[in-house]
């Protein structure tokens, strides 16, 4: 082996010399330096010399085996493909229920609920801050009654549901459990995910309510509740997606997400939970951006890093605790308002990178999302895009098909190394929560976002239709519009509910919740009791606001 590598090194040296002296003077390369989005240098060619230090069994392993670099299951998509799960929700529960059924009828395999901003921030639709926002970026849910409508005719034991909900995650989970009860489906039969990831809300997404400490308690309470009552439920989806959308690089996305993951594990251990009881239900959520190979490398490196941290640092024993399972969404921030049909092609390549990276579920964006919420036709093309990858391209026929590529393995190593540097830096600052309070991640992201914008404006970074190959265009047609009357309807329904429900039961349940919040017991059971008697989301969140206070963001740029 060593002899072979010496021969190779000599051959490569000669080749490089030839390149420098004879080839490049006549055929110069397009750029002086080639870099990934994270500014990792990309060489002209890669050879076995670049992965000399990689030990196959130690660094890659077999699929489904530690450190899971090649994938979390032994057969990956040869067994079954990823779950096709389109994020959807707008207007009222009736509207969204129709969109869910449309998607399920066309081969979607799992649901993913988009809630409107008032719901995500714990305000009812009649709150002054909700005006203009009800039903806009997702469905408005004020109470269990809306949730019953949302899943009307959809048996919860047959479908898995992901809910993008963070600060009020316990409340929406409770509503989902209560809908299950009404359908005769027990909690242990429910499968799905709550996002429940507050740290990235402080960093990048903005739908926080409470300060970090009580927020972390709500999260560890849901970990505990889920591990005893909902064995098939992912109690968190630790999300890099929004960090990337806010402008981070691939390395920052992954590093900040893993650092947040470490913070959740530590909080749960501190709350007295056993690692191998909650860790198997931790899941992740990443972005699939444009720099194709770096994205694949990012997914592979993330699995390896997480497995090692869980094993070496936290001493997890259950193999499921070591596996980084993740959902992927294609990068919304790469969609252009100009020549929107070109977005279909961007999404297809991004989807392919997620699949080659071994994703467990996937959302493909619609072509018109830089303009409005997606229309039905656009959503169908997006779903069909992942169906083409799954059923027509053959990339699903072997596990980790890019594994062993000199370039991919080298890039995986480099992404891992750069991410570990960030993770160690955050640790040295006292962990993710402290670093967030100091604005560290936010400033790093901001710098990357600004740089990216300047690269577009200078033309160094090409965006088709924006700074290259522009054409005269007619304004786009057939965009989805949320009828403003839906907002008024939603407030009327809420008003009606407030008149019809058992007032004593509601106020009693809220008083008991307040007591629980002041104490140290698990808050999920009293939230579930309040939800069952139709206390509203806003009422429940207000009780917790009273006890916990509200988080104030430092406006830095």
């Amino acid at each position, binding site marked *: 082996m060593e002899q072979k590598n010496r021969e190779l090194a000599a051959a490569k040296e000669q080749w490089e010399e030839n390149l420098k002296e004879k080839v490049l003077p006549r055929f110069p390369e397009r750029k002086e330096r080639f870099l990934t989005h994270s500014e990792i240098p990309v060489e002209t060619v890669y050879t076995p010399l670049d992965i000399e230090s990689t030990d196959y069994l130690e660094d890659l392993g077999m699929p489904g085996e530690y450190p899971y670099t090649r994938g979390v299951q032994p057969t990956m998509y040869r067994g079954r493909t990823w779950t096709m799960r389109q994020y959807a929700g707008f207007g009222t529960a009736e509207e969204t229920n129709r969109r869910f059924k449309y998607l399920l009828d066309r081969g979607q395999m799992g649901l993913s609920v988009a809630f409107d901003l008032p719901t995500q921030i714990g305000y009812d639709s009649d709150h002054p*801050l909700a005006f203009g926002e009800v039903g806009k970026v997702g469905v408005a849910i004020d109470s269990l009654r809306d949730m019953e409508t949302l899943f009307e005719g959809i048996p919860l034991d047959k479908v898995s549901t992901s809910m993008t909900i963070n600060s009020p995650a316990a409340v929406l989970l409770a509503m989902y459990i209560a809908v299950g009860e009404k359908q005769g489906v027990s909690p242990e039969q429910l499968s799905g995910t709550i996002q429940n990831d507050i740290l990235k809300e402080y960093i990048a997404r903005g739908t926080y309510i409470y300060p970090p400490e009580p927020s972390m308690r709500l999260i560890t309470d849901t970990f505990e509740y889920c591990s005893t009552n909902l064995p098939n439920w992912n109690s968190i989806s630790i999300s890099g997606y929004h960090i990337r959308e806010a402008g981070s690089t691939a390395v920052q996305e992954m590093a900040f997400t893993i650092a947040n993951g470490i913070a959740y594990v530590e909080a749960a251990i501190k709350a007295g939970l056993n690692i191998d009881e909650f860790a198997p239900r931790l899941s992740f959520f990443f972005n699939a951006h444009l720099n194709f190979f770096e994205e694949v490398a990012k997914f592979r490196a993330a699995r390896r890093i997480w497995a090692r941290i869980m094993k070496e640092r936290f001493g997890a024993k259950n193999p499921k605790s070591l596996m980084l399972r993740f959902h992927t969404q294609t990068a919304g921030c790469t969609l252009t308002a100009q020549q929107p049909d070109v977005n279909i092609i961007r999404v297809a390549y991004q989807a392919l990178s997620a699949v080659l990276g071994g994703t467990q579920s996937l959302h493909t964006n619609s072509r018109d999302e830089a303009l409005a919420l997606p229309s039905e036709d656009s959503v169908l093309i997006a779903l069909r895009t992942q169906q083409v990858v799954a059923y027509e391209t053959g990339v699903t026929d072997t596990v980790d098909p890019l594994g062993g590529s000199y370039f991919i393995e080298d890039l995986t190593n480099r992404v891992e190394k750069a991410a570990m540097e960030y993770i160690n830096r955050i640790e040295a600052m006292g962990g993710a929560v402290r670093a967030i309070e100091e604005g560290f991640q936010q400033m790093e992201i901001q710098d990357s976002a*600004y740089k990216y914008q300047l690269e577009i404006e200078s033309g160094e970074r090409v965006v088709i239709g924006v700074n290259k190959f522009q054409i005269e265009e007619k304004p786009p047609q057939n965009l989805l519009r949320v009828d403003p009357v839906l907002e008024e309807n939603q407030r009327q329904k809420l008003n009606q509910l407030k008149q019809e429900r058992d007032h004593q039961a509601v106020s009693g349940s809220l008083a008991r919740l307040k007591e629980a919040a002041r104490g140290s017991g698990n808050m999920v059971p009293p939230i579930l009791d309040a939800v069952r008697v139709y206390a509203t989301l806003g009422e429940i969140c207000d009780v917790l606001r009273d006890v916990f206070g509200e988080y104030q963001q430092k406006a830095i740029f």
Partner: protein
Amino acid sequence: MTNPVRILVAKPGLDGHDRGAKVIAQGFRNAGMEVIYTGLRQTPEQIVQTAIQEDVQVIALSCLSGAHSYLFPKVMELLKNEGIDDIIVLGGGVIPEEDIKDLKDAGIREVFTSGTPIKAMLDFINENTGTTGGVS
């Protein structure tokens, strides 16, 4: 020498998408403007009060949640109630073409949608505030 333009970059409503707002805030600052950024979740009332306190010439509103048709005109209405008509108010975000006319009718001077370079906004502001200096 002209005084630098004072500009308030504001996020009305509940929308948390602040990448665009922060990028333009930084771009304006690097071009020599005095930039105040509100942070997230500002009510139209808070935005107008800040604009008055900070004595700005320009307010740049950013909204990607689709609530612009409610929030932007609300800011204009409150400014009018305060007797202010000399602050230039700009809008940006995910804003469908067909909404732009109504926003302009409500007094929003210009709407910049996805893909607009920082330079285009700077040029617009400099032309409309009568300043030529400050742009790097």
